[in-house]
């Protein structure tokens, strides 16, 4: 407590009236947000897909899971994933639906082949997906498995960080709604720490696949 007082008192004695500048407004403008998102995510070794609708996106998801040879899939139980009845659709796979399936989630994620989630937003400029934690949104589900697949409607696309903060100030970014963890994901995990040579998949997922669909 004494330290706190010492620091704050010292700072307060040097307080000056200097106002924060007015909010920076986005100057970025893209003709097609989805197209820009695809370009940006591709540039950082992410794997974007565009589907005409949710049905098409689900079909693509099935094809990707088959191609990966996935056997164990963990899914965050959020829209639109929650409505797809994935375990009934693909019963040959072993599923863990967060908040629904009994059993140790962390243990399952440790050996899962794929983590499946949606996101609260996607940033076109940088090819980033924004995810939240929540009762049905596991943090390790999108982190432990070697592949992370995102299913996201194009309506959640926003231009850049500035339009993101402007749009979500009173919703996703507000006190009380901001969850314990919010993560901007912009590609697969990577490092260049050994001789400046890029290597993919050091701690996080090695593949980051985003299926965008129009509504």
């Amino acid at each position: 407590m004494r330290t706190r007082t010492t620091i704050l008192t010292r700072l307060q004695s040097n307080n000056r009236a200097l106002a924060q500048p007015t909010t920076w407004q986005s100057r970025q403008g893209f003709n097609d947000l989805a197209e820009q998102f695809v370009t940006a995510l591709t540039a950082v070794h992410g794997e974007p897909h565009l589907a005409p609708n949710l049905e098409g996106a689900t079909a693509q998801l099935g094809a990707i899971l088959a191609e990966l040879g996935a056997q164990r899939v963990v899914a965050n139980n959020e829209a639109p994933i929650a409505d797809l009845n994935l375990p009934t659709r693909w019963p040959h796979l072993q599923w863990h639906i967060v908040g629904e399936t009994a059993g140790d989630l962390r243990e399952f994620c440790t050996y899962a082949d794929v983590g499946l989630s949606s996101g609260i937003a996607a940033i076109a400029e940088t090819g980033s997906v924004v995810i939240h934690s929540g009762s049905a949104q596991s943090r390790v589900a999108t982190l432990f498995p070697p592949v992370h697949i995102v299913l996201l409607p194009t309506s959640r696309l926003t231009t850049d960080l500035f339009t993101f903060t402007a749009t979500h100030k009173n919703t996703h970014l507000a006190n009380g709604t901001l969850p314990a963890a919010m993560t901007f994901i912009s590609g697969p995990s990577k490092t260049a720490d050994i001789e400046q040579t890029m290597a993919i998949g050091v701690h996080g997922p090695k593949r980051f696949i985003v299926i965008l669909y129009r509504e």
Partner: protein
Amino acid sequence: MTTTTAQFRERATIALEDVRLQQALDGATGRFATARQAALAAIPWADELRDHFKAIRAATLANLAEHLQTFERQATAVGTHVHWAQDGAEACAIVTEIAQRHGVTLATKSKSMATEEIHLNAALAKAGVRPVETDLGEWIIQLAEEPPSHIIAPAIHKTKEQVAELFERESGRPQSAADIPALTAEARRMLREQFLAAGMGISGGNLAVAETGSVVLVTNEGNGRMVTTAPRVHVAIIGIEKIAPTWDDAAVWLSLLARSATGQPMSIYTTVITGPKRTAALDGLPDPDGPEEVHVVLLDNGRSPLVGSKYEEVLQCIRCGACLNVCPVYREAGGHAYGSPYSGPIGAVISPLLFGLDKYPALPHASSLCGACQDVCPARIDLPRMLLELRADLVTQGIAHGSEAVLEGSVSLAMRSERVWALLMGMGRVGQRPLLKNGKLALPERFNPGGERPLPALAKKSFHDLWRDGEV
């Protein structure tokens, strides 16, 4: 640690004579600098954005007490424990106490300059807690028992052969030196075990957002997510100056950070931590995972006395490393010459200010004053001005940094390496360009140890080039 002129000379000489290190430094800093330039060129309003950012940082520091209190209030409201630390010892005591209370014997760490600054790893080890660095570069130098040599790329001085050897020793299995993806996969496997076993995760914080009480962590590897997600307890140590009052301010900060550091529009993972896992999330149900306890240590360690002083500007720094990559002295001498976790131009200014000018008397002179650092700084920090202020302080405080002694005794050294000589005199070849008169160096009088008399200019071809080309 201290850095006198003799020590700087000694360490710089080692770096200068290490051909492979010179190549690595050249390559890494060159790549970062080029990537940064391209990333900023891609946003035509980059210069205005930097002006705006500087205004944000200046205003934030002018009202820092208020923003810290807002942060504390909001963070506490979501269940974060907020601590205040006057110095490194206090910060280390707070962290080790938390570890011991939870019976932690293994802690995973995400790269953090603040924890380097306070020597947290040594304190943890002493308290019976094994700290494991998880940023690949940071882990490599931890295994090698060496300090970081670059703010962003701590292990740029290691070869893949050296890395393979370190991994072999750690894993007890043979490693193929030629195969960087295989070494990376091995690191993933070995460190994954640590992530799962650790009782505590320790991170720094790239910034903290006051209005929501959040800590923001930026990584490319995903270790920041691991450290803040897998263990039961998460502790973040963050300098008191790293505050963004609002998300609007944080957006500007994040728009510039990765672009300036590595030339990425955005790092792969930007993680925003706002309290421990919820016992009742928005729908009233508990979060399935995440730490049960989150602590934030607000670290002063010499920062608050700078507020309101002629050095306040240095607190605008966001540790992007851009100034290192363009600095002619850093690019030659490497990070270890500075004898501080903070190297390059920012290190030359902040190390004496945080840790004592008497301990780092050589650093204000480890610069050519060429201005390249200020040109690339996202907050346009006037580092050259502060280097000059520090040089003046050396004089007024009567601290000898040994340049005169070096001058006298340096003839043989200068013959061996003109670059070492240039480094010590605070003039790289880049820096001397505007000062050249008729092929002679004409320095402002204040910096010319030879008085009015011009010094001979440095050879076009440096010692290193001569040596590489077999001419010496």
